[in-house]
């Protein structure tokens, strides 16, 4: 990969420009885009699936899709969000084509008390919701994460978690009820 820049400093192209250039066929821009976004995508997908081979394939498929679909980006929002949308769905494709249970949802080693810094982060991003989220059971939390945070449909969430769509729906309802209670 050589010494490709991984974050834009002053004067260097922003992601939107890189993506546009990629759509125009610029391989160097594409390589820079990869260097900037592949690492976090690997980590984020690893939190959904602990099989590194599947994650690697999903990341690979994602960037091939980025190359092919760069022209179709509507130019709105964060490039990272667009890439995530492709990435999570490619991971789902990988999971669907393999027999379970090789892929399991990753859980933190222990749900400990958040540190002071983490509390700040939680406060900044989610406020009270964060604490309520932590108090949900792992199954409900996984469903919330998949649908609300990752932006998947009920069916896609079902594929990711290995659940039928109906189960996803019921768990969502229970999660919402619990959160409403906790925030009331």
């Amino acid at each position, binding site marked *: *990969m050589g010494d490709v820049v*991984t*974050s*834009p400093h002053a004067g260097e192209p*922003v*992601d939107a420009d890189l993506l546009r250039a990629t759509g125009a066929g610029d*391989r160097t821009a*594409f*390589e820079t885009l*990869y*260097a*900037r*976004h*592949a*690492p*976090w995508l*690997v*980590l*984020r997908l*690893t*939190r959904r699936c602990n099989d*590194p081979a599947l994650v*690697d394939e999903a*990341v*690979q498929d994602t*960037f*091939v899709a980025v*190359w*092919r679909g760069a022209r179709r980006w509507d130019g709105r929002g*964060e490039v*990272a*969000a667009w890439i*995530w949308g492709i990435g999570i769905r490619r991971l789902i494709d990988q999971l669907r084509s393999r027999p379970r249970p090789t892929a399991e949802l*990753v*859980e*933190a*080693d222990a*749900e*400990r008390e*958040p*540190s002071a*810094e*983490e509390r*700040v*982060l*939680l406060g*900044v*991003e*989610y406020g009270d919701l*964060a*604490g309520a*989220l*932590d108090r949900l059971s*792992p199954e409900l*939390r996984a469903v919330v*994460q998949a649908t609300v*945070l990752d932006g998947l449909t009920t069916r896609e969430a079902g594929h990711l978690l290995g659940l039928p769509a109906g189960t996803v729906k019921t768990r969502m309802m229970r999660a919402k009820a619990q959160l409403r209670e906790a925030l009331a």
Partner: protein
Amino acid sequence: MSWHIDSETLQRYATGTATSATAASAEAHLTGCAECRALLAPAVPAPRLDAIWAEVDRQVDLSSRPLAERLLTRAGVREDTARLLAVTPSLRGAWLTSILLAAVLAALAANVTDGTGRGMAIFLTLAPLLPVAGVALSYGPAADPAYELTLAAPYSVLRLVLLRSIAVVTCTVALTAIGALALADNGWQAVAWLLPALALSAATLALSVRTTPTWASAAVGTAWLCIVLVSRGSSQDELVFGPPGQVAALLLLAGAVLALLHFRSRFSYDTRRSS
């Protein structure tokens, strides 16, 4: 973006030890912050990223190749060999379509028989010439704009010539065989063109040691037409297309291959007579 995730939390996220809510928050932040994303980059080992990239690069490459090359690679041909083959004019879609058309039309014409067997004779005369024309367009100064460069390069010219002409002959023969399906009369005559086709193609290759493929194919084509016309005139076309002709074709094929092997080193020079 003025607020960033502290390094310890980032570390916890990278190693998968952050709480779910923390991780969710971090991910939400990362979606919009390039600096924090960059800080995460070292958490993934470079060899892993490089390996993924190598595969992405390969697929992107493949997807931008012309159709002929992609088909060849799909068929198991090595990528660089496929690249050398795909530029051959007589492996292009337009040319191959014309070949198929010619074969089908000749076959249909053969069905319109007037009792003298002329129709069949036309097909049997034309079919062996199709791969000869293909060979003429498979290499050499007329067919390959980079001919000079090919000669001056280390890649074996003979290997290139053989690869291309064998590919062309195979495709052309296959398409002619498909065209021959349109023949109403499916006797031994429906395949009587095969050996002459191979023999004439080999003869063209052998001759192009001495001259350009264009001239070689013209010579071979003309000779074939003369033979056919003469035998037709004397009502001896059983001789040409029947068992004696097949044996002769086989001998010509063997002879041409031997000549080719014997003179193979001549290929690495320019075969044009004048500069």
